[in-house]
């Protein structure tokens, strides 16, 4: 068997693994319940909240990731290795631990001051965005840095010899060249934020019609031993998440190749 066939087989094996997991949900599937759950006020709220918070968190994470990744990719500065290493913190500590760290932060005098004089985060929808942002920032920066590392420094140097400032070289040369990597960073951040559970539930809580995102709604269904309802919500979440990512991938593929 050729390498090409073997690799395609592995790719389909990955697909089959996830497809089997999704199809196994049908064992508990009840058609009528799907429509009833999908169009209930509570589910629609959770869908809106999840999409809104994941989008805001991913936009913020990507916006912060671009300058950070540029510094890590192009500059040498004291403490660079420490900054680079800590990007993996959200992946090393569990999301629940990250949520607990945020909760503990808001328990100290500085956090308390932010809560009383600035915005409310604990048990609030702002907390969802913060939890998702903190969880995704490291991934967004790592992916953006990887994309920038692929662009030779020489291109910027050439632009500068032609009279471009450092900023102009970055915006006109490096940034357009790594747009596909940036798009990937955004998409992955969005997907990670959309499915984020541990940090969100710890910081923002589980209140229906207030902080109940789709992953939390799934957890709550399971908490009431309602397996049929759990299955419906997982199917809804899968359809929204995979559907959105597929659509974005198709659109960006056209746009990025244009």
């Amino acid at each position, binding site marked *: 068997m050729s390498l090409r066939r073997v690799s395609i087989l592995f790719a389909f094996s990955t697909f089959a693994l996830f497809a089997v997991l999704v199809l196994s949900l049908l064992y508990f599937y009840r058609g009528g319940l799907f429509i009833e759950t999908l169009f*209930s*006020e*509570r589910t629609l709220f959770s869908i809106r909240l999840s999409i809104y918070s994941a989008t805001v968190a991913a936009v913020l994470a990507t916006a912060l990731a671009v300058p950070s990744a540029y510094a890590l990719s192009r500059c040498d500065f004291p403490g660079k290795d420490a900054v680079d290493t800590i990007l993996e913190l959200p992946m090393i500590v569990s999301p629940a631990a990250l949520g607990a760290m945020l*909760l*503990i932060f*808001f*328990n100290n005098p500085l956090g308390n001051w932010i809560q009383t004089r600035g915005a409310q985060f*604990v*048990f*609030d929808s702002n907390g969802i965005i913060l939890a998702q942002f903190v969880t995704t920032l490291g991934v967004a920066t790592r992916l953006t840095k990887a994309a920038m590392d692929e662009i030779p420094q020489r291109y910027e140097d050439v632009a500068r010899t032609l009279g471009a400032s450092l900023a102009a070289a970055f915006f006109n040369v490096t940034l357009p060249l790594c747009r596909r990597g940036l798009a990937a960073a955004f998409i992955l951040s969005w997907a990670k934020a959309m499915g984020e559970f541990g940090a969100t*539930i710890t910081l923002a*809580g*589980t*209140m*229906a*019609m207030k*902080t109940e995102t789709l992953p939390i709604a799934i*957890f*709550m269904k*399971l*908490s*009431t*031993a*309602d*397996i049929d309802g*759990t299955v419906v919500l997982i199917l809804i979440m899968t359809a929204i998440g995979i559907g959105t990512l597929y659509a974005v991938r198709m659109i960006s593929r056209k746009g990025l190749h244009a």
Partner: protein
Amino acid sequence: MNKYSICFSTTPAITLVLFLVLMPVFPAGAAEALLVYAGAASKPPTEEAVKLYEQKTGTKVDLVFGGSGYVLSQMKLARQGDIYFPGSSDYMEKAKRDGHVFPGTEKVIVYLVSAINVQKGNPHNIRTLSDLTRPGIKVAIANPEGVCVGAYAVEIIEKAFTPAEKSVFRKNLVNYTESCEKTATAISLKTVDAVIGWSVFQHWDPARIETIPLKKSEISRIGYIPVAISSFSNNKVRARQFIDFLLSEEGKAIYGKYHYFMSPEEASAWIGATKPVGGEYVLPADWRPK
């Protein structure tokens, strides 16, 4: 030596190190272990009781803690486990109805009474249930849809408050916690000023939690923590032995140490009135949005 040969020469060493590190994670003879699905309402003493039981019998007990409904879901889906030990009667009733436990094996281990829990020293001077409607007071209850202590809290609120008071209370209600344990932790971490939890929370974390008793007229019923053998159990004899240990003087002493009530009479004496024990409470529609 090129980089590939270095890579290949170090691979067996890395594999050996990983094997040695991971080996203790997969102990042999796990088949003899008892699997217990437990609601978090009894976490501190149950962990202690399990440790003592393991020392005395040599039988390993694997404890899965969580909300009573959540662990019931896990047991249903995993189709394995020996004992169901929820935080109160509500989910035991459901487990019996759905045939996931043997009803004849159900025993009551301890009794619980609802109370207000505040930070140690009561910095917000919360003395009564109506203090929870004061402006600026931040309150949490356990999620009433999945956690029994939350359903008890809703029952108390529904009976004690007028619609206007209820509306003010719900403005102060900033969070639902996802388990009994996290309801107590909300006070320990000072994320809220008060919770409506169990009187025993104070003894889970005496340095940070204080219990404010409710008026006897505000308490609707006494909760209890039941235990029963799961219908998926392959080890009913050992499961029975574990339940007998919990009911023994030695087992009861551990729960007594954490100030759980050992009889309905003891709970009634603490409340100052006789109250019905256990049962199910149907949440009003506005507490479970569709």
